[in-house]
């Protein structure tokens, strides 16, 4: 089977100068660019604190003692590497709109592109990245680092195809077990299962993970510009419904907007990042704004 082209090189090159940095401190095993949740004793000075018996005397700032006659212990910010897990929805609902169009034609294509780009950025900066593909049978590529793993990561993404239904809530529970240390969890989905998924997303955030919700939507879903009565088929359940779009369009769009607002508010209320991407819209500017926003929040 030929390997599919997940992301164009131009898209990747345009973002390679950006670092995927986390706004929160993360726990890692290696030194890196990211702030550690622990105040260790590394190269970068962080702050002073009052001396406590037992502190290593070599970190006592004697000059400050001379000036103030008080003992202060210097603390350093320890940098470590990032472990990122992409929870990617590969259910049938992501296979929309269907067709053999160019890259980014369907929600799944867009989600895979985003995952590949961000995963490549994470791996290129020396951090670990993994992916948990969510469909009927969740498949996990554990977070690892290294250029070899980048090939594995991209290869696994290329081999994914939308199939079956999604149990995003269960997958996020599994993600909580995979991410034993606090890290970055990026959930890429259309979130039609939001009532089960969002509580698990909030649970991950409460566990200390830096959670990013990437909400993937199709332009056709938002506009609902379907003409004439048609039999609508649910991509996952196969359930059918005769619908006269002209009579339900207003109610549909209103309900969708309310739903989007609810998801956004739920995610951002707990301090999580929310990124909404729509098929057909330019991807690169949206990602650039997102990454610059995260860097600015550092």
């Amino acid at each position: 089977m030929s390997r599919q082209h997940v992301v164009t090189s131009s898209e990747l090159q345009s973002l390679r100068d950006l670092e995927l940095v986390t706004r929160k401190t993360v726990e890692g095993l290696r030194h890196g660019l990211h702030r550690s949740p622990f105040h260790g004793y590394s190269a970068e000075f962080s702050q002073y604190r009052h001396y406590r018996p037992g502190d290593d005397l070599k970190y006592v700032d004697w000059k400050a003692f001379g000036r103030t006659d008080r003992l202060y212990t210097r603390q350093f910010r320890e940098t470590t590497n990032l472990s990122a897990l992409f929870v990617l929805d590969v259910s049938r609902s992501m296979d929309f709109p269907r067709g053999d169009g160019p890259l980014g034609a369907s929600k799944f294509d867009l989600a895979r592109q985003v995952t590949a780009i961000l995963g490549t950025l994470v791996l290129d900066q020396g951090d670990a990245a993994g992916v948990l593909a969510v469909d009927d049978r969740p498949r996990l590529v554990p977070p690892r680092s290294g250029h070899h793993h980048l090939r594995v990561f991209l290869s696994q993404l290329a081999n994914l195809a939308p199939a079956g239904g999604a149990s995003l809530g269960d997958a996020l529970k599994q993600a909580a077990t995979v991410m034993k240390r606090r890290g970055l969890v990026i959930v890429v989905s259309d979130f039609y299962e939001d009532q089960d998924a969002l509580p698990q997303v909030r649970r991950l955030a409460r566990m200390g993970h830096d959670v990013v919700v990437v909400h993937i939507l199709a332009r056709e879903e938002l506009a609902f510009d379907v003409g004439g009565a048609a039999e609508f088929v649910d991509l996952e359940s196969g359930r059918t419904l005769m619908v006269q779009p002209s009579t339900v369009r207003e109610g549909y769009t209103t309900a969708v907007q309310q739903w989007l607002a609810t998801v956004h508010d739920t995610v951002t209320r707990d301090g999580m990042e929310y990124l909404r991407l729509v098929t057909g819209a330019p991807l690169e500017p949206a990602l650039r704004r997102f990454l610059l926003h995260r860097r600015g929040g550092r």
Partner: protein
Amino acid sequence: MSVVWLAPMALAGLALLAIPIAVHLLVRQHSRRVEFPSLRFLLPSQLAAFRRRHIQDAWLLACRAAVIAAAALALAGPVIQSASRSEAYRARIARAVIVEPGTAAASAASAAGDAFVSKTFARDRLSDAIADATRWLEAQPPASREVVFVGAVRRGSVTAGDLRAVQASAGIRFVVAGGGLAGRDTQLSVLRSLPAGLMIEQRQVHFEDDSTRVTAGATTAAASDLVRIVAAPADQPLADAALRAVLGEGLRWHDPTQRVLIAWDGTDEAMVQRAVTGATLVRMPRPDPPSTAASALAVAIEQVTSAPTGVMEPVRIRDEQLQAWSRPPNGVPAEAPATDEGDRRWLWGLVLALLAIEHWLRRTTVVAVATAPVTEARVA
């Protein structure tokens, strides 16, 4: 028990059963299908929204097919011929009731009885009523036919000629209504010679169905020259004797002031002219033979002195005659099917019920679609 179809050609309408089946199949095959990520936010449209491959679709199809089948069967007009229905069919009768004007309506209604179908005819002329009744009977569905005459059946009101206009297959029956003719009274003034002289006597006459009763009343004295008779000298004794005999029995004398002069042929004309002054002159031939002189004289006088009473003697047609004219109706033609009856009304009722069920099924399906996606369609 058997079934007779009144309009068997309508059974071809069962072929229309193919329409709802074809519609279901064609809609299923040719409807545009749009794959959509989730039906979560798709409320069903008010006009056309139903779930397919759902058991209710089969019920809907079956219901629609049943509507067409029931309508076709109703149009075909089935008649289920059971034993009881056949017996009732053979016993039914179409009855034309001819009512004599003035007869009570209740009598006509009771005469109609338990007829399968009946109609009352009241015309001024009996022949018109019989003609209308005959035409009406011929237009009725197969049944025994009968013409019933309701009224007083006075003599002369119905004749054998009238009854010949009634078709031979129809029975004839008479119903004497009113419980008998009413008695009537009248008063007569009679000029009579009594020992006290010539008198005007008032008589009360009462007519009954089968008897007449006369009662003498008050008498008043009358002028002695109210009635005179003149004749040739040879006939004068006979004339006087005849007049006395007539007055002895009495003459109807309507006007007590009227004077009458009877002149037999052969009387001297000059004498007649002298005597007639102020009197009504009645000329008459000399009665021959002389023995008839009194009766001839009475007839001649009463022609000018009596007045019509306006009272007919009420005589009913004899029961024997009515019995002779009556005849039973022929039965229902055995070869005639019961084409005027049918069970189609029950089938039309079934059609209405099925239409209501079909409407309910459609509403139920739409409601189910409107409420079900909350849990099912969200699984996307």
